[in-house]
């Protein structure tokens, strides 16, 4: 009887000890998690989440008299109307955005430029990626490096290089205009044109298309093509029925990687484009660094964000459904 009771007590104590042990372990684990995940979480909350929220808040404010923002509350509560300035929160910037068709046009033009850039990049990148994926292993790494290498040189310099090539004194301009002159057509300027913007966009973003395509194509089992050939598929059929559909996830991720940055790009039109070649990015830049209309600039940035989210969601959905098709 006493023995049994004693045994029960020691067991109880062991259980208690065990419970304390578990608590200590989970506490230690939580501490480790806190120390590893905490600093980046805090940093990015302060310098990414909060600024994004502030941008949203800014879009509901009035612009200040000399740029920036009007204070939320008027310095003297009753005097605000007489000063011609308004305070507090408003939808004015949004109304302004939707009231002028000009902004919708610029958004549409940006989408068109992004789509054209994506398409040209795809056409240029696909054969390259295909060739790399079918090369010998040691050659592959070198070929990929050669794609990335120009990408590592300064962004502005890559755009600037096209200023030289397309410039009025360049050999290319002379040649084209000589040909056009012989045909009796008036000379053209290549630089500061939509064409120059497109060339610059493609040049800056081409590696973003090659890399995901290559990563996808590299994983294809070469036996699939052999099997298709064995079953009587011609070269083109092998490409259209096997390689292309399998590469769709790579195509969509590459397309997203090109389309999204092009949509927000202001430097390329700024340097290579003419005055009429303004895209969303230039518009936003002007609101912050030119006219200093912060609320309207914020509205534009929010619209761009929404567009980007929609595109990213669409690309992810397409890529998934492409994979789904393959699975069934």
């Amino acid at each position, binding site marked *: 009887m006493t023995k049994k009771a004693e045994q029960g007590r020691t067991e109880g104590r062991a259980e208690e000890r065990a419970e304390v042990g578990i608590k200590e372990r989970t506490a230690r684990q939580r501490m*480790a*998690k806190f120390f*590893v*995940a905490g*600093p*980046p979480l805090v*940093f*990015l*909350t302060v*310098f*990414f989440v*909060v*600024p*994004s929220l*502030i*941008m949203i808040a*800014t879009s509901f404010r009035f612009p200040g008299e000399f740029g920036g*923002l009007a204070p939320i509350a008027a310095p003297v509560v009753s005097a605000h109307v007489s000063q011609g300035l308004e305070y507090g929160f408003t939808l004015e910037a949004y109304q302004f955005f939707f009231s002028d068709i000009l902004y919708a046009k610029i958004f549409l033009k940006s989408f068109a430029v992004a789509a054209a850039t994506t398409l040209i990049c795809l056409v*240029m990148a696909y*054969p*390259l990626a295909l*060739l*790399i994926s079918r090369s010998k292993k040691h050659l592959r790494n070198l070929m990929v*490096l*050669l794609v990335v*290498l120009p990408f*590592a*040189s*300064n*962004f*502005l*310099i890559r*755009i*600037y*290089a096209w*200023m*030289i*090539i397309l410039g009025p004194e*360049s*050999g290319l301009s002379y040649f084209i205009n000589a040909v056009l002159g012989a045909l009796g057509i008036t000379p053209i300027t290549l630089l500061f044109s939509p064409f120059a913007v497109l060339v610059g966009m493609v*040049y800056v973003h*081409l590696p973003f298309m090659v890399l995901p395509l290559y990563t996808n194509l590299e994983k294809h089992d070469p036996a699939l093509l052999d099997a298709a050939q064995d079953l009587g598929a011609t*070269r083109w059929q092998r490409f259209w029925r096997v390689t292309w559909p399998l590469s769709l996830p790579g195509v969509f991720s590459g397309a997203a990687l090109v389309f*999204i*940055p092009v*949509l*927000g790009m202001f*430097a390329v039109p700024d*340097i290579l484009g003419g005055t009429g070649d303004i895209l969303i*990015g230039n518009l*936003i*830049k002007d609101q*912050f*660094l030119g006219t200093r209309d912060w609320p309207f*600039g*914020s509205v534009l*940035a929010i619209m*761009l964000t929404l567009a*980007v989210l929609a595109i*990213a969601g669409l690309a992810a959905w397409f890529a998934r459904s492409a994979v789904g098709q393959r699975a069934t």
Partner: protein
Amino acid sequence: MSRSTRWLWSAAILAYAFLYIPLAIVVMYSFNDSRLNAEWVGFTLFWYEALLNNKEMLLAARNSLIIALSASFSATLLGTMAGLAIHRYKLKVLPVLVFTPVAMPEILLGVSLLLFFLQVLNLTLGMISIIIAHTTFCIGFVAVIVRARLQGMDESIFEAARDLGASPWQTFRLITLPLIMPAVVAGALMSFTLSIDDFVITFFTKGVGEPILPIQIYTMIKVAVTPEVNAVSTLLMLLTLIMIIIAGKLEARNMEAAGGEAGK
């Protein structure tokens, strides 16, 4: 060589030409003895000399170097932590915060940080704001690289260390850290390159004070193109080339020491 391979090769050579000819032209004109980027006149090192005497440019280069070193240091630290945390724990918020700044157009981060610095921190824009901005978008790149390496590793290696008597901290110091080191170094080099290269975010967070290299180049391109730009460009290309070679060498050595397996 089959017909399709020949076709692929010609398309690829065209693509490579498209990538390299513009840069070759920049390098070439940096040695050209002419004010115009039009025709080859003769060889000179004049533009490099001019660069060496350009006080503003040297200051800008120094500032950019300081920014790139600071930003890559903090981004590597925070990005490595983020990569480890995302790999190890099932986190919902952190991955979104880490990867969104990488995926969004840069201008959005630039604009929101501009508003934040001016409205909330009331910070005078300058080196500090640029370093913070660069760190914010570089964290994601480091985290991606570190996480990719962790994903490629056999998870039971870390359990084995615990099993054989190592505390969590010893496991990190003796196993995890040495094994992810190549990724950490690659992340640091990448952050450095991204930071020194970055124009868009710098443009929004720069303020008016100190000259910064990309801004300086932008002004030269926009306002008065002189072949000095070619010289700066060539030097910057050389710098990134050296960085890439170093990164490649380090990676190769680490792979050897880590024994192929970890790199898989």
